[in-house]
């Protein structure tokens, strides 16, 4: 019987919300949904996976070499399971992006990246040009391979009771050796999945002023820091926090743009944010055209005032 296989995302703190949201997306086909847990996972992760409402089985590939699964190993594992599934999918995360294209090519099928809508069995809406346009795309009938923008779906309930099945994994590909992982950003949340993002533009003036002005506000809000390409090019912010078409595309609950003019490629990276706040001294700045709340003022006055107001 055909079914949907979803690759779970988790870390040491448990199953990620993207997995819960993706289960809802996986239900688009009205087929049984199985969740694949790659590598050694603690008991809490398996338990949380079991409780995902609407999930039939949790497949646990508990092999040490899948602790940081290489695309080579994960794709081979998926190949060994593929005969039982008509859909193989994952959230559009670095893991899904790494593994699924390799798997799709091994199966000789096309793949849909970052589906925003699923019209089962094989039609999708997905963003192109950094979300400036939406494309309706049909994949060939047969095995469907895709990643989804998980935040487009509501997380499923946690009252399920799926069985856990231990599955065997093919041997590790010795040509690929995992060395280490480095989680950047320290205390601040990860930019691409942060609930709140505070970002700054070139008007911050220097790297020191960037951190001194926006850092306390971000800390107060538990927000990730972002920057425009202009601010990054000027050396005011590290390039791994660049938000926009060529940087990170974000869709937080709250996006606060401080001294951001609103270049097209930056707007492309923030337009799916739920609420956008813009603070800019220039009343004609493009950013105001997309902002839910605009404040025409000097960001150097607003940032400390806003930080203080939020402390109350």
């Amino acid at each position, binding site marked *: 019987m055909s079914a949907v296989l979803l690759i779970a995302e988790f870390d040491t703190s448990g199953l990620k919300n993207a997995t819960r949201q993706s289960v809802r997306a996986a239900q688009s086909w009205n087929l049984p949904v199985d969740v694949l847990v790659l590598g050694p996972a603690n008991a809490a992760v398996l338990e949380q996976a079991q409780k995902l409402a609407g999930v039939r089985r949790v497949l646990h590939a508990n092999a040490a070499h899948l602790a940081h699964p290489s695309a080579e190993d994960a794709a081979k594992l998926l190949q060994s399971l593929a005969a039982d599934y008509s859909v193989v999918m994952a959230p559009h995360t670095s893991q899904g992006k790494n593994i699924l294209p390799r798997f799709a090519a091994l199966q000789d099928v096309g793949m849909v*990246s970052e589906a925003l809508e699923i019209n089962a069995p094989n039609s999708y809406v997905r963003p192109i040009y950094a979300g400036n346009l939406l494309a309706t795309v049909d994949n060939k009938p047969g095995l469907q391979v895709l990643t989804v923008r998980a935040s487009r779906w509501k997380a499923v309930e946690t009252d399920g009771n799926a069985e856990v099945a231990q599955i065997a994994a093919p041997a590790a590909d010795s*040509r690929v050796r995992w060395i280490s992982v480095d989680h950047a950003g320290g205390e601040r949340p990860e930019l691409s*999945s942060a609930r709140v993002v505070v970002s700054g533009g070139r008007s911050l003036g220097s790297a020191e002023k960037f951190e001194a002005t926006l850092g306390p506000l971000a800390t107060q809000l538990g927000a990730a820091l972002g920057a425009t390409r202009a601010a990054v090019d000027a050396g005011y912010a590290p390039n791994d926090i660049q938000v926009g078409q060529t940087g990170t595309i974000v869709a937080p609950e709250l996006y606060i743009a401080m001294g951001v003019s609103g270049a097209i490629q930056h707007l492309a990276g923030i337009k799916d944010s739920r609420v956008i706040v813009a603070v800019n001294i220039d009343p004609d700045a493009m950013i105001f055209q997309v902002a839910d709340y605009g404040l025409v003022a000097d960001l150097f006055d607003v940032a400390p005032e806003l930080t203080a107001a939020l402390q109350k």
Partner: protein
Amino acid sequence: MKVLVALKRVVDYNVRVRPKADGSGVETAGVKMSVNPFDENAIEEALRLKEAGKATEIVAVSLGNAGAQEGLRHALAMGVDRVIHGEAGDDLDSLAVAKLLKAVVAAEQPQLVLLGKQAIDDDAGQTAQMLAALLDWPQAVAVSKLTVEGNAATVVREIDGGTETLNIDLPAVISADLRLNDPRFVKLPNLMMAKKKPIGAIDLSAVAAAPSLKTLKVAEPPPRKAGVKVNSVAELVDKLKNEAGVL
């Protein structure tokens, strides 16, 4: 070591793209085109490998209509040794591109294929992984640091919330992230010289590479409606708390 760089010519990242009037695709007539920014990072990294004595020859390939040759001229002006144009349709999906590139790899026998992590037009981000799968080579995706030592490469790749370091055997397929390097500016004399250099061709008409994906419609997303102006920080905080409910 021979390095093959694959590049795509795309609508320039500064252009505001629009759907065609009939919604069948993206309007590209009269629009400024450039080499995909991530592919420029791939070209730059290949050049640096050669300058460091790690690579002996850099070959750039681009697939598509005659316009692809403009991108190859840019690669020549940046300093690649040789370029190849593979004539192909403009409805290719990533799997089709990977199949065509596999044929180019078979003809050129590189030890390393470098390309951008994604093209900024279709944003699929699949070609490197698919090519690696078809070749049965190791892959490293979204790489921000590359060190080649003998028959292996150590790569730092961008992952959600940080980086991951891998060591992989060559031959391999590696896709470049923006942070890998700052591509050099092309100087006008180099561009003039590049215009005189030959553009090689490879006949890929015998490669079975029918696309699996079909684009039925392209549309603009519903626009964000402009919001309201507030007059003070206090009013802003109040709106965020009581109206938007995000604080």
